[in-house]
């Protein structure tokens, strides 16, 4: 995973709540067997609407998506995270994320930041008033900085450490091989098996 320490970029204000992963990347894109090439599928249906935020020239090149509550609900598709990254987003800010989407984002180095809805609205207003305004998402100091706004955010220490270092989860877990073997040795014999090995 690519490490995330701090990122500064412009804001794309997505004034919608309940943005489900079917909106972020529709199902027909999920037939691909790679992790890249999803940028054209990002918000595919909404991008046909001329006034959609990603179609507005003043927001081209924005790299911090600021969205309404309950972002990433629905399907577990990690393709939603890949699509946001493929398009060029490095961070998403919302007052509430769906659990699976959040987990997926942090495992791919897309920083999802929870801020109160009032802060989200302040960032929307900022981007509308000055599309060139820069926001900094600083994971080292766990702070979001923008003209007229300074807000701390929470992230569990472990996720933060892994993001800052760009660590490979699987490698870390395999370091605990012995604990896994010990657990396997004491598992009940009645537990189901899909095949005999």
């Amino acid at each position: 995973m690519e490490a995330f320490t701090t990122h500064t970029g412009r804001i794309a204000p997505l004034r919608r709540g309940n943005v489900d992963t079917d909106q972020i990347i529709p199902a027909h894109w999920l037939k691909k067997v790679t992790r890249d090439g999803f940028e054209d599928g990002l918000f595919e249906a909404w991008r046909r609407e001329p006034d959609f935020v990603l179609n507005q020239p003043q927001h081209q090149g924005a790299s911090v998506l600021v969205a309404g509550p309950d972002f990433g609900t629905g399907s577990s598709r990690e393709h939603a995270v890949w699509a946001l990254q493929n398009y060029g987003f490095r961070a998403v800010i919302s007052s509430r994320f769906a659990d699976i989407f959040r987990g997926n984002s942090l495992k791919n180095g897309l920083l999802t930041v929870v801020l109160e809805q009032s802060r989200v609205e302040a960032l929307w207003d900022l981007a509308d008033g000055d599309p060139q305004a820069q926001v900094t998402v600083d994971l080292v100091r766990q702070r979001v900085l923008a003209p007229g706004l300074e807000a701390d955010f929470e992230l569990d220490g472990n996720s933060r450490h892994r993001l800052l270092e760009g660590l490979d989860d699987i490698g870390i877990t395999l370091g605990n091989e012995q604990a896994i073997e010990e657990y396997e040795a004491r598992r009940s014999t009645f537990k189901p098996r899909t095949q005999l090995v």
Partner: protein
Amino acid sequence: MGRTLAEKVWGDHVVRRAEGEPDLLFIDLHLLHEVTSPQAFDGLRKAGRRVRRTDLTLATEDHNTPTLDIDKPIADPVSRVQLETLRKNCADFGVRLHSLGDDDQGVVHVVGPQLGLTQPGTTVVCGDSHTSTHGAFGALAFGIGTSQVEHVLATQTLPLAPFRTMAVTVNGELPADVTAKDLILSIIAKIGTGGGQGYVIEYRGEAIEKLSMEARMTICNMSIEAGARAGMIAPDATTYAYLEGREHAPRGADWDAAVAYWDTLRTDEDAAFDHEVVIQADTLAPFVTWGTNPGQGAPLSARIPNPAEFADESARLAAEKALEYMGLTAGQPLREVAVDTVFVGSCTNGRIEDLRSAAELLAGRHVAEGLRMLVVPGSVRVALQAVAEGLDTVFTEAGAEWRHAGCSMCLGMNPDQLSPGERAASTSNRNFEGRQGKGGRTHLVSPQVAAATAVLGRLASPADLPPARSTSPSSRTTAGV
């Protein structure tokens, strides 16, 4: 201090616990399908890793598979490549796969339970959010992303952040015309699509205890639609009766040992939940969605709500956008909403009891002129059982299309899709914009409401149906089976 069911199952799977780190949990059953696994297998290959426990892993083809002409090559080349990729991955890594054409193929969340692989007190994961279905057995079951799929393939474990616990207690008895689907849609409307965020929900109370295993699966299936990490129901005699004798259920002394353990999987009386919701079952009625998220629902007897009357501004805006997308007008009675297509199927309502209840209403009746009805069994086993009971004939004589098993129109990854503006009553789980096809409009309903809607051509409940004409022997109903 006692522990909840979820906390007990979690506690029994901790491989490693360390200060400041997430618990490392052992995974008892890992289910795979073609959509969320290819990049995970790729990752294994690149790192030179193997599948640690092929004996705890099972794959099936479901999302992309066609429901017609399954003996012919898959027409869509991209779908075909994805299915072929799964076949190659399973062959290369030694994973058991049930392919299209196999008697055990079907929707992953129908296949696991019917094989007896989903058992109380297990941890079950799959790269699919509706893995919550398996919680109906008292399993801790949840959807994961592709990175986690790779992690489980390589290690059979997952590092997991702690969850909070929520009890949804449903007291009293459900009215005769209210199904598990109506109940879960009512629960989601009450707590909201984000209300369960961070929680594992335990459904309990008299009305839950009286549900069949299949109905319990319908409830737990849609926990994710309330934003919950998982949904669970404590195992009981109903659970054991469902499991006993199934292919992968324990036998002999193992069965006795398993039941002794399963009997401990109940929330202790002195356990505390972080949040509790209480619902009176007798206040519920057939329930349908009118909007574009599963929380935007109302009793079928209601009218389309007026967004202006929503106190919360974001809810008002969401309702306005939803009505615009859905082509509906505030104040319109839900029963007057005309429907083009009816879909019966999915991991929510594609099991034999669902098909029986729809068939019972369609026997001696016919789907409305010009309306398309698709019946897609959740698995080949469900289809074979339905055929043995003559349900396929009931459906086809009523003018419905009887299809091959798969996810089908629930998410429209195969050719079964809605056209722009087309309106469906669907027994599936998501009414998101475009979910069932670009521009398609979805109302989530129970199988009974789906069948009644198919007959009348507008959203309807069984009580709205005129009497059926008497049926011929070939189209007998299976009521009482």
